């Protein structure tokens, strides 16, 4: 029996998410990534003597929205606590956080794996706190803290609103961990509450990992994995750590409860520090702040803004069956595109072919033009769900040729308008009347002796050249299938 069959992994994910607000959590300084060092500071976030915090209402609402999107409970009473520990990038040497009364408790993150199958992971809680500054370590040669001689601190990030989402240990595979994170990330993106960019640190995650004999329910000793800077490194780090723990147990060893850092370049986890001795954070209610009462009307007002989530969109797009799993995944990645598509599909509910065609348009031609222009679907107003829907109908119904349809799209995205009106105004409807095409066909046969001769000599390809000529002469309006059958008919007669 292999190790893989004997053990299963138990994974719990914790995420820190910087919230998207204009100002910081407890002061009016800008909440902006990448500013010049130590320019976004005031007495409050630099913890000058005498300064006092005042909480940002929007940040609180963002967290409540996040909880509501996952069906979490919003307790009536909440508050901020101080978490006391000394660290040079934390100006007050305590972090304003939430201890026993977080803004949201419970909830479930439903997610879809790459193959479209569904999984879920419960949330323990989501709470609100403030971010720390950032240190650059010097003297170690490689920027690492180990071996450094001194550090330089930029406090711009100190006081940025930070949401901590704690997941239950419901996850069993690295693949599910990534899928969970993807849907968590997308949900925050859909809600507009964070930029969720791992590369900028606005989404950071740690994982608790243990393994246990398959089929048992007691948890093994866990390790906490840090420093995972992308979803790919989450998958790699978890795979490595699970394998490492299996190896330790197989060799008769014991797993030590500790924090381990993921080393991206070496592809291994290193022990960072022992967690055997718990920190004494001396949490207590922040006496500079007053309690929060999350009354019904406030919550209900927020509930209205959390209906649009990636998992709901995924379900709707997949339900009809018109779209492939890959297409659904690709669309759901982009909240604006998803919103656009879903709105377009409301024109023809339940029409799988229309859904398929619209998705194809959005993912190919529309995406190409947007890419060329360097804009996003919600960064323009000319293409709308209404006029795109019309275009898809015109093209699918054969009213215009696909060539005309592409031209129409270009024109719509350059100047807007209804494609139906453009077609009517400029006579761009596809020529599907045999009598109207017949004269063009005759004209083409008369003018292309060589192709005609080739065709008659049995060169089947010659018919394509002749159809091409018909399209050219008709300015793309001729129905190509009709043109071909008329050509074959006439050539057979002559």
């Amino acid at each position, binding site marked *: 029996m292999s190790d893989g069959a004997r053990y299963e992994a138990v994974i719990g994910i914790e995420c820190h998410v910087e919230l998207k607000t204009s100002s910081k959590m407890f002061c009016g300084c800008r909440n902006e990534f990448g500013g010049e060092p130590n320019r976004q500071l005031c*007495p409050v976030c*630099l*913890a*000058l*003597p*005498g*300064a*006092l*915090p*005042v*909480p940002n209402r929007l940040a609180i609402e963002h967290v409540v929205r996040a909880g509501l999107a996952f069906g979490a409970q919003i307790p009536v009473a909440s508050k901020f606590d*101080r978490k*006391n520990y*000394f660290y*040079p990038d934390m*100006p*007050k*040497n*305590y972090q304003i956080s939430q201890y026993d009364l977080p803004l949201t408790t419970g909830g479930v993150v439903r997610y879809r794996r790459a193959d479209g199958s569904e999984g879920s992971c419960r949330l323990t809680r989501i709470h609100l706190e403030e971010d720390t500054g950032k240190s650059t370590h010097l003297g170690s040669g490689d920027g690492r803290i180990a071996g450094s001689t001194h*550090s330089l*601190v930029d*406090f711009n990030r100190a006081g940025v609103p930070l949401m901590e989402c704690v997941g239950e240990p419901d996850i069993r595979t690295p693949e599910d961990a990534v899928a969970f994170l993807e849907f968590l990330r997308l949900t925050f993106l859909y809600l507009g509450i964070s930029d969720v960019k791992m590369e900028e640190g606005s989404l950071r995650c740690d994982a608790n990992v243990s393994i246990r004999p398959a089929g048992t329910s007691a948890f093994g000793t866990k390790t906490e994995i840090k420093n995972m800077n992308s979803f790919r490194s989450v998958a790699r780090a978890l795979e490595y750590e699970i394998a490492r723990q299996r190896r330790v147990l197989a060799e008769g060893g014991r797993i030590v409860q500790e924090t381990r850092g993921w080393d991206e370049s070496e592809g291994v986890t290193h022990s960072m520090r022992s967690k055997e001795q*718990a920190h*004494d954070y*001396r*949490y*207590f209610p*922040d*006496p*500079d*702040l*007053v309690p929060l009462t999350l009354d019904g009307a406030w919550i209900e007002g927020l509930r209205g803004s959390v209906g649009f989530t990636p998992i709901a969109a995924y379900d709707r797009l997949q339900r009809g069956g018109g779209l492939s799993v890959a297409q659904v995944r690709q669309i759901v990645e982009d909240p604006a595109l998803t919103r656009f598509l879903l709105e377009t599909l409301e024109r023809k509910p339940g029409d799988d072919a229309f859904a398929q065609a619209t998705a194809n348009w959005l993912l190919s031609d529309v995406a190409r033009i947007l890419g060329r222009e360097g804009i996003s679907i919600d960064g323009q107003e000319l293409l709308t769900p209404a006029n795109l829907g019309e275009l898809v109908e015109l093209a699918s119904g054969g009213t215009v040729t696909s060539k005309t349809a592409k031209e129409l799209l270009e024109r719509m995205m350059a100047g807007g308008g209804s494609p139906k009106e453009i077609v009517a105004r400029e006579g761009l409807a596809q020529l599907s009347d045999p009598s109207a095409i017949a004269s063009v066909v005759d004209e083409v046969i008369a003018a292309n002796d060589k192709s005609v001769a080739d065709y008659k000599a049995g060169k089947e390809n010659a018919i394509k050249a002749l159809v091409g000529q018909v399209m050219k002469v008709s300015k793309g309006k001729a129905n190509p299938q009709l043109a071909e059958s008329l050509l074959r008919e006439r050539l057979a007669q002559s």
Partner: protein
Amino acid sequence: MIRRSATEIAAAVNARQAAAVEVLEAQLARVEQMEPQIGAYLAKTEELARACARRVDERIAAGASLPLAGVPLAVKDNMCLAGTVTTAGSKILQGWVAPYTATAVQRLLDAGCVPVGKANLDEFAMGSSCENSALGTTRNPWDPERVPGGSSGGSAAAVAAREAALATASDTGGSIREPAAFCGVVGMKPTYGRVSRYGLIAFASSLDQIGPIARTVEDAARMYDVMAGHDPMDSTSLPRPAEPTAGGLRRDLHGLRIGLVREFATKDLGEEIDAVYQSAYRQLAALGAEIVDVALPHAEYGLATYYLIAPAEASSNLARFDGVRYGPRGNGTNVQEMYARTRAAGFGPEVKRRILIGTYALSSGYYDAYYVRAQKARTLMAGDFEKAFGACDLIACPAASSPAFPFGAKGDDPVAMYLMDFYTIPMSLAGLPALSVPCGFASDGTAGARELPLGLQLVAPLYQEARLFGAAHAYEQATRFTLDRAPAGLEGVR
């Protein structure tokens, strides 16, 4: 002019009978003369004062009328005043220049006050004698061998010695009322939340409150009226408008029930002191008050409650003094060593004791037994007052258990010093407004001791500052203990 009350100075400056710059120059000369004896100030701020005085004269010339036009002000050195060195009496802030101004101080400047200097205090306002200042010694103007009280000792001494007409002070467990009593001046602690704490270097956030020290009740009321009111920079600032108090000063106490606290019998304070308080209570009755008996059964737990809650909050509030962003730094090869040495060298013994006890009270395993239990005792204390105020409109009691004591008298037993706050702590825990008004003189019975002022403490229900000042004014005008008598040796000094 500087011997006049703040009310009189403001009237003269507003009427252009005197210029603010003239008042200031006279005041600076007086400070120059008195400081060698008194040591009320840690720093003088002449340059800023001259600029402020000129500005006041310009505003008056432009037609403005300012409630405290040209009134010389001492600012307790735990309040930020932009551009001035602000130390809280601690070596850990030596040389630190505040880049912003506390809200309460700003309101005083806007009202026409002229800041003469930064007044001495017990380090971080922790103490009852001013002996804990790391940066200077302040002497009691009534007897230079004795302490001025604390922590607002510099503020009280400055006002008593006519080195300022008004002084800002802060009270956490008695730090306004006790030094006011010791120095024979009026000191008032408003309802918690009435005056913004923004810019007040925090000792214990849930207890700290800024209030006025003045030579007359009317001056204190005017100063309070200017400082009080909502401040959006302080989350604990009361949004309700603070009713002006200066207009409601009374000449009698008819219709008021004044409660004497059963647990605060003065017999044990010595015959002479007991006689002063009994006479004060008779005077209240003579002015028309109905004297009633009230009980504060939990008052005896006040000290124990306070000496857990205040140090716990302080241990966290003072964590920011770490040698990273401001203040002198201790040597250390790594940051943890640097912290420990910076703080060891920067904090004095009393501050260290309180940080230690507070850290302990919050630490894992002791939090419920100490901190939470103290918070519950605090609830009981507030309940006592609520019940007592069902039977009376004001409470009268001593402001301190003795007159000013000689330097070094309390030895190295912190509990003996803490007992000085026995009469002031319960009101602080309940957040109530209270003031000390001179009520007579007594020697402490030691051979050759001079007569020293004593303070009568009046306490009002939450938000009833107007009632408090009104009654205190009636008592003051009827008794005139320090209105007609200056500290020995200072009468003739001009």
